[in-house]
């Protein structure tokens, strides 16, 4: 599903250049569920953003579902994100003025699904998350766990092949974290590839494989 070879990425700010990813090689098969761990600043988010085509890389090769991803036009990458990838962020990233249902339905708006139909589908996904009663609430009326479940529903609604989650439980208490992990595991069981960046050992243990990044290099791959 995902194949990367010798990915390098530097951030250039003014005269300084920070070499963050120093030749990452990684292969993730369809239906896998893996976690990425590492110290703060080691480059986990950078890697995930490249995988999600939210950012580009300097050198190397990235194949997503057999498609070579390099310097794509914004139009093409937008299309790929819409079709292939679902994002779950630590800070939820819900649109503040849209209610839960409208937030969930948003990816379908960019697939040109008519409003009524996409709201209906959004309701189904919210129901799967146990949130049908909260459909018409704005994000600031929801708890952290509820917000993250809305975000997961939104990530799923476009029927992606891969879910990329950057510290999805980072802002949640341990009980809620476990619930979110239950959901992500369930999603994985339907065949969707799930990649989770996390700091928490418990969370990593619930994935099938843990990749450890140290200072821009993969230093360890552990099968849990």
């Amino acid at each position, binding site marked *: 599903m995902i194949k990367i070879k010798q990915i390098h990425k530097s951030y250039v700010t003014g005269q300084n250049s920070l070499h963050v990813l120093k030749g990452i090689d990684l292969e993730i098969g369809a239906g896998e569920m893996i976690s990425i761990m590492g110290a703060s600043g080691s480059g986990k988010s950078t890697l995930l953003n490249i995988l999600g085509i939210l*950012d580009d890389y300097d050198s190397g090769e990235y194949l997503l579902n057999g498609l070579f991803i390099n310097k794509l036009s*914004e*139009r093409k990458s*937008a*299309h790929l*994100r819409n079709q292939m990838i679902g994002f779950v962020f630590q800070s939820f*990233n819900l649109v503040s003025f849209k209610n839960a249902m409208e937030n969930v339905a948003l990816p379908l708006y960019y697939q*040109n699904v008519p409003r009524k139909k996409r709201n209906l589908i959004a309701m189904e996904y919210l129901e799967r998350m146990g949130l049908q009663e909260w459909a018409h609430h704005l994000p600031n009326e929801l708890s952290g766990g509820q917000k993250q479940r809305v975000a997961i529903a939104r990530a799923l609604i476009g029927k992606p092949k891969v879910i990329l989650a950057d510290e999805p439980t980072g802002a949640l208490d341990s009980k809620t974290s476990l619930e979110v992990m239950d959901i992500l595991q369930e999603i994985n069981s339907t065949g969707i590839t799930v990649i989770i960046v996390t700091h928490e050992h418990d969370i990593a243990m619930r994935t099938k494989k843990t990749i450890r990044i140290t200072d821009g290099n993969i230093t360890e791959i552990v099968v849990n």
Partner: protein
Amino acid sequence: MFEIDKWQEIYSTVRKNKLRTFLTGFSVAWGIFMLIILLGSGAGLENGVKEQFKGGATNGVWISSGITSIQYKGLKIGRPIKFTNEDYKSIKTTVSGPDRISARLFLGNNLISYKNEYGSFFLSPCHPDYGFIKEVSMIQGRFLNNIDITEFRKVAVIGEKVKTALFKGTDTVAMGKYIKINGVLFKVVGIFRDFSRNDDEQKRVYIPISTAQRVFQGENVINQISFTTGDASSAEADLMIQKSRALLSKLHTFDVDDNRAVNIWNKNEEVRKFQALFAGIRMFIWIIGIGTIVAGVVGVSNIMMIVVKERTKEIGIRKSLGATPWSIVALIMQEAIIITSFAGYIGLVLGVGLLELISKKVPASEFFRNPEADFSIAVMATVLLVFAGAIAGFFPAMRAAKVKPVEALRDE
């Protein structure tokens, strides 16, 4: 279907960001509103003064006899000048240019009656051309004609108000009836309306000057000579006046520069003065109006920039969900266009509404009447503001759309 959906998306965004919408809209609505009020008040002022010039051709010249104020050829100051029919004939035959010319006699208010009804009305003996010079409009019948003059006919053309004052009850038909002017019977041959707003102008009775001289005066004196200058330019008109003045000064032996010996009122000159004044006022209004519009444009631009900044995170989210750059630009631009058009329309309606209200509730005065805004200018200003809003939104929107999604998402 997709298109309707796009509008719905914009509508829901607008509805849920009321303050933002209000701020964007307000500067546009205010700009248009102020522009309309400005244009309207300017027009009201102009209409008010223009009304003062109604009733009488704008190319009319009135020359009245007066009293000398400059010593000339040993003749002393304070000598009254008396015009006669000869003066009228001289001007008519020797001064080239005037297209309508008439002499007038001032007989003041006279007792005029019909059967038991009577009143005091201004009697104005004149030539047929005076109808054109004064621009009276006939409601019924005709104005005076040349045969009336040559045959000394006892005919009268009466004002609308004279008719209603004398012909009442069961006897409302005035045409062909005989009215008594100072005891002499005159046949009513026409009823007129004067365009002047001055009520007194409707209370006049015109009779042939020849008849008046014979019946009421017994001599050939006249008090005023008036003419219209046709299509002449103002310089040509001034020349006609100059020639008439020179002619009269020779005939009556007074200094050509004696402005009291003859009083000359050149309506065209007065109109020109006001036209110059209003050109000034109009320019002033335009400067303020353009200033208002510029302020509106700057306001809209500022708000659009803030809006885009404020929405950077949302743009990042939308992009991560599959929004293309173009869809982002379209979202922001369409929103800007909808808000500014709608606000412009509201400003338009409020402005025009207020002008209508003023028109209706505030009685027309000498200086203000019927304020009206040039609608096409208001619409153009609205279009300009909408366009400015779109442009103002376009550049920040383009920048936002080009930003990599990671960067937009990082924005806190």
